[in-house]
């Protein structure tokens, strides 16, 4: 089986633009969750969000593209450009694109819809066309000349993890020389109001694994990677950031929003990821948890981790970087895979900030408040989505 490696990464989220800003934010345990400014949050239960402040079309985007790009388009284009530049792969037609996304251009199209409802002057006509999550993938293809296989995967909050897995499968099957892959989502009123109505938003910045946790904080951003086969990467002298060892997918088949109480689905995804990776549970030395800070998720995920890791569970650091960048939905799996890469390269464990009061039912080592200097070699990242979608990916430091 060909070995799939990561040779480029790009990032934008509430902690800033660029992998370096993300690294420093995680290392310093900076919380990017603050008051919402993107739209009026006063009529929601919570008006906290991990926004990308001051997002503008970068100068390198042509005017016509900058004018029609949705907020998601901008986020993903910025992250993709950084990833391609890091990999040194700009302008290769045999590059595939796999993105995970759930909101697409909804931030613009919901505004267009509002204007139509109230007979206000409309935005550009292209706003509705950009609603589809796939238009972000189409934009990347034309921006960077990537004409390999292309797919937008939308499995709610596990989308980003699945996009990486599908990209790795394409490399293994010889469907593309390299794949630009990851996840993106932007904040919008539709998802904000939806989680608000489900009473799933905390009124203060989210507190994963905390006794008093009361829900999630939504965020936005993008993380993009370049995946390719190891020998090719070595032959062209690319820097290998990490190895993508494998992934596992399962479904709860239980409920449209609630996870299965016994955590069997989460466990199966983790077991499958380990099996495909040829990694024993004993080898995992950091878990980037889904850790949404909803009362149910954190207990069930903890339970599943204990089953997977056995007695060693108490000695494996587990953290939720959502405490810093919020829950970025379709981008979460990719952003958190990047947090793992950053941890391996930087030799530190990103913390779970805002965790003040331990919960007796969540009693693992969640690396509270401050990052920890520690060598990290083999990591797992979990992503669980609405509808009971579970995805786990396993990464290893480059040798």
């Amino acid at each position, binding site marked *: 089986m060909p070995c799939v490696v990561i040779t480029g990464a790009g990032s934008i989220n509430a902690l800033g633009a660029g992998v370096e800003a993300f690294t420093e934010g995680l290392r310093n345990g900076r919380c990017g969750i603050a008051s919402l400014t993107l739209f009026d949050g006063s009529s*929601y239960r919570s008006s906290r969000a991990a926004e990308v402040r001051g997002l503008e079309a970068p100068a390198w985007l042509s005017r016509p593209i900058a004018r029609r790009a949705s907020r998601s388009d901008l986020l993903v284009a910025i992250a993709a450009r950084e990833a391609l530049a890091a990999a040194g792969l700009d302008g290769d037609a045999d590059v595939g694109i796999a993105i995970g996304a*759930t909101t697409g251009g909804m931030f613009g199209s919901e505004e267009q819809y509002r204007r139509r409802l109230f007979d206000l002057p409309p935005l550009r*006509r292209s706003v509705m066309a950009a609603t589809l*999550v796939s238009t972000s993938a189409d934009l990347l293809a034309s921006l960077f000349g990537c*004409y390999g296989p292309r797919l937008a*995967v939308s499995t709610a909050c596990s989308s980003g993890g699945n996009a990486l897995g599908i990209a790795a499968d394409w490399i293994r099957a010889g469907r593309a020389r390299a794949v630009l892959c990851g996840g993106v989502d932007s904040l919008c009123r539709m998802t904000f109001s939806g*989680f608000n109505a489900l009473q799933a938003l905390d009124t203060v910045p989210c507190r994963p694994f905390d006794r008093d946790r009361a829900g999630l904080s939504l965020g936005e951003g993008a993380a993009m990677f370049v995946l390719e086969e190891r020998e090719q990467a070595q032959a062209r002298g690319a820097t290998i950031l990490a190895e993508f060892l494998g992934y596992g997918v399962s479904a709860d088949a239980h409920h449209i929003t609630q996870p299965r109480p016994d955590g069997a689905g989460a466990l199966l995804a983790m077991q499958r990821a380990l099996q495909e990776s040829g990694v024993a549970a004993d080898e995992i030395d950091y878990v980037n948890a889904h850790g949404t800070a909803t009362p149910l998720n954190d207990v069930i995920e903890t339970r599943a981790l204990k089953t997977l890791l056995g007695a060693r569970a108490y000695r494996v650091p587990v953290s939720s970087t959502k405490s810093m960048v919020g829950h970025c939905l379709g981008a979460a799996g990719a952003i958190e895979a990047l947090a793992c890469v950053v941890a391996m390269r930087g030799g530190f464990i990103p913390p779970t900030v805002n965790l003040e009061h331990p919960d007796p039912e969540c009693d693992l080592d969640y690396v509270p408040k401050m990052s920890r200097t520690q060598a990290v070699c083999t990591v797992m990242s979990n992503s669980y989505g609405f509808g*009971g979608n579970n995805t786990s990916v396993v990464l290893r430091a480059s040798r």
Partner: protein
Amino acid sequence: MSTRSISVAVTGLGIVSPIGIGRDAFWRALCAGESGVRPLAAPVPRLAAQLPEFSPRDFIRSPHLRRADRVSRSIVAAVRMALDDARMADAAPAPERLGVVVGSALANVGESAQYLERLFTKGPALVSPMMFPNLVLNAPASYAAMEIGATGVNLTVSQGEVSGEQAIALGCDVVRAGRADVVVAGGGDELAEIVAAAYRDYRALSSQRGGAEWCSPYDADRNGLILGEGAAMLVLESAERARDRHAPIYAEIADYVSFGVPAPAYDWPARAPAAVAGLQAWLARCVGSPAEGGIDLVCGSANGSRRLDACEVDVLTRVFGEAAPQMALTSIKGAIGEFGAAGALAAVATCLGLRDGLVPPLCNLRHPPPDAPFHFARPTAEHRHMEHALMMSMARGGNSIALLFRCPRI
């Protein structure tokens, strides 16, 4: 490369279409040249291929689906029909080895519009917490998993007008990589005023270009597309597994190729010369040189649009060269209209065409395009001996995919 040589068998079909509910009703109507395009009461669109009234409860057993939305119910009904059709009985896979892959451009778009209207007119405190989870693109795949108890791989892809084809291709990959023993793959989409408005913004609808309002793929006088809706699901498993359990096989999927071509934003390309060499090389690996006539039927994605249909004919003419006159070219969108998952319904037609040796017709074709050397079956299905059928499809934005189907090897 090894897993790409694994042949995937299609052993079950389920379909909810504007021309009939269920495999047999759909196939009978399609072969007879019927079209589901009808005038609607709504002003936008004026004409569309709408689903007939049907009772999803005839197919759906799980009580968890009482709150499921309209698209989810169509998709899950198709999933149930497909799985029943595959007659697994003793050979049913373990729940964790059963997967679902759904393709949908917009899924529950009608309720999304209703939800936004309520949000903007009544405020966030009055939107329904029951409605929101159904607006998520993967709600249909999640409901499908609940209905059939599938705890294996569960994926949803969204790729404009080729969402159905992409889901079937991904389903094949899941089977080939051994991530599941059986995958139910396909897709569904629904008609909504907001979708028609988006296509209208790009002057893509037949009604906007003058002349008669109709949907006639490849026709020299075509003037645009007409929207439709529906769902179709295919049961996929390795051909080896299907033969071991002595399952009737509709067709095998030999391989697929997915690629992009340069295209204007939100529109189809006028030409796609870049696609030709890649398709030829891929076909040569699968069935031998395309000019030597290995392919008997091409089921295209043409929808009556001036651009897409011309582009498709151009690419196919270049790919197949001298073999073109011996090949039949068809598209079923005159019967079912255009929508994100239309390709899943076309895949069902392709499988049934191979099984019965029947070319699905172009029900509305009056004037074949003068530059297309292919044979066109019209207005009803034609008998033809066929071994290999190619589905070739292109979405706005240039995302393209070709799937190679063949008669089962016994």
